[in-house]
């Protein structure tokens, strides 16, 4: 007689990409809950440009897996109406860069339905969307826009850095009674046609589990500096931490996971120990994630050994040509260099 624990322990490890993890989570939840449906551009026959809905049309049919016209305002608005009617729509905005054609339906409608109705009407929907650049797709297909979504109340906003979290976050998101923006980073997605950071491809339970929304996670412990990242930048931080360790610098890495609500306490607790803070993200710098994390730590009066620092995408449109794009994108070298400099400053 094997206990469930033993059973889990002996199951063979899988190698799941974030894309497959997302599709698996949605599929499992569609099995479990007939109110779940998926809508978006190219999510049915094609299975999603970024593979988030692979196989779902065949399993669940065209009533529950719906290709839409190129009408983001209408189909995201429709998702709100579905949610108000008790359904649980998962909709895809193919690139976050397209938010400009449909933000009203997201931030003024979905995000405020619970509030405006005094809790009578909820809005259980997931809006999943791809973020990030680094592959030469230029200024309207490479943005991150974390802070744009984090700034507006009524939305939960998450971004996984690996397949395990992606599956658990997607299950949590679909079950949450609120609108959840689920961002996935193209450089972590594991599509055949896009390079993928290998560390994002992980094992993940085949069954049901959730990763809680709203919680950050320490993904590498360290003593000298806290490096906060999210999505892709978690891996840049981990890569840098590995190199820094060889140099005798011990970096703690926090995976923010959730942009809204943002888990200030996990970050503060870490910085209280390390006394140094570096935030890394690939969204635009000003009014961005770095500013929010730095302010959250500083306003709490946590003593710092050196000034807090941030690495982000500069306040410029994303240039097409790789020589420019890679010059301005954050990367592990920049993270390591920033940490080295923070260690040098006499305290």
């Amino acid at each position, binding site marked *: 007689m094997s206990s469930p624990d033993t059973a889990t322990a002996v199951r063979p490890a899988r190698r799941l990409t974030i894309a497959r993890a997302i599709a698996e989570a949605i599929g499992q939840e569609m099995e479990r809950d007939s109110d779940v*449906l998926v809508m978006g551009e190219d999510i049915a026959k094609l299975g999603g440009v970024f593979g988030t809905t692979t196989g779902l049309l065949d399993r669940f049919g065209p*009533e*529950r897996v*719906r290709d*839409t*016209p190129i*009408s*983001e*305002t*209408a*189909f*995201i*608005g*429709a*998702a*709100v*109406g*579905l*949610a*108000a*009617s*008790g*359904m649980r*729509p998962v909709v895809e905005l193919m690139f976050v860069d397209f938010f400009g054609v449909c933000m*009203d*339906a997201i931030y*003024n*409608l979905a995000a*405020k*339905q*619970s*509030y*405006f*109705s*005094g*809790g*009578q*009407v*909820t*809005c*259980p929907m997931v809006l999943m969307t791809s973020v990030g650049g680094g592959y030469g797709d230029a200024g309207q297909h490479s943005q991150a826009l974390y802070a744009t979504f984090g700034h507006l*109340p*009524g939305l*939960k906003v998450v971004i996984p850095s690996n397949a395990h979290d992606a599956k658990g976050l997607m299950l949590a998101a679909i079950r949450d*009674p*609120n609108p959840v923006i689920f961002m996935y980073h193209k450089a972590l997605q594991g599509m055949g046609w896009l390079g993928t950071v290998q560390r994002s491809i992980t094992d993940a339970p085949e069954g049901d589990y959730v990763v809680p929304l709203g919680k950050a996670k320490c993904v590498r412990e360290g003593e000298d500096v806290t490096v906060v990242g999210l999505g892709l930048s978690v891996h840049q931080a981990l890569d840098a931490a590995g190199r820094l360790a060889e140099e005798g610098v011990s970096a703690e890495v926090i995976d923010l996971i959730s942009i809204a609500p943002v888990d200030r306490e996990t970050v503060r607790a870490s910085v209280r120990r390390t006394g140094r803070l570096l935030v890394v993200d690939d969204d635009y710098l000003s009014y961005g994630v770095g500013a929010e994390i730095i302010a959250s730590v500083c306003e709490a009066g946590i003593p710092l050994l050196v000034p807090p620092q941030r690495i982000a995408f500069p306040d410029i449109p994303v240039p097409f040509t790789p020589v420019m794009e890679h010059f301005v994108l954050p990367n592990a070298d920049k993270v390591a260099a920033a940490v080295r400099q923070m260690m040098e400053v006499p305290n």
Partner: protein
Amino acid sequence: MNGASNASDRLWMYATMVKSRHFEALIKPAYFEGKSPVFNMAKGPLPGEMHLSDGQEPCAVGVCAHLRPGDTITATHRPHHVAIAKGVDLDAMAAEIFGKASGLAGGRGGHMHLFDARVNFACSGIIAQGLGPAVGAALASKLRGDDTVAVAFLGEGAANQGAFHEALNLASVWKVPAVFVIEDNAYGISVSKRDCTAVERNADRAAAYSMPGHFVAGNDADAVHAIAGEAIARARRGEGPSLIEIETCRLEGHFMGDAEGYRPAGEVERLKARDPIPAYRARLLADGFEAIDLDRAEAEARAAVDAAFAFARAAAYPDPEEAFAHVFA
């Protein structure tokens, strides 16, 4: 008279129009409380913008006569007449507009954000914002296989917003039980329809979505009733969406405090002379309704509104800390 409306619907439509008009009549003095001698929108028991529906009652009653609580409505920034016709809780609606704890949303929403889940009513302040949600509600109905419908109200100004185009196309492609109702009051704030709309009749735009497009002239409850009945029945039968354009009028300013300098001289007077409510009463009398029945229905309608306002006035303001509740479910 239009034969399609039966007597009980017609009496209900009359009484509901009176109820709606009386609601606005009580709003008016309340809105000006605290706003004199100097008019300041921020002051008094009813701060903020206030969009009255005087004149547009036939649109609401002609459509809602066919609706049940399970049917969905998404309405606009000018929502009172539609909310009342849909059967939104009158006490809670008045209390919401007064910002009271017993309001529909405990005072969080206000007059442009009235939600009553009991009767599936919602409205909002962004032009054409309700159209997408109506398509979604209609899709939910289709997926569940019930025969509910969703009706989105919009102004003629809203028919130039991108959301209109997208929602009508989507509703048609997915063949959902949705009905789009344009209340054409000839103005979007100060801009007249002919200065901003490339077609004479928005109903003609239905052809761009392969759906029936109906135009209802004369701001006439019976005529609206007939056409809406057809469109809603069609939707319930699973035959897809329709567009209805209703010629109506706005007897008041865009919002309270509007000086209406953009109106041609005498326009309001001309419109008031054709006020649809007394006209409808006259028609009902001509069609054999008894004055005493109309009077009784009217009195009941007014009494319900009076009671709602008394309830709202007497109700308590919420605890300020309540501002933090219901951001998330």
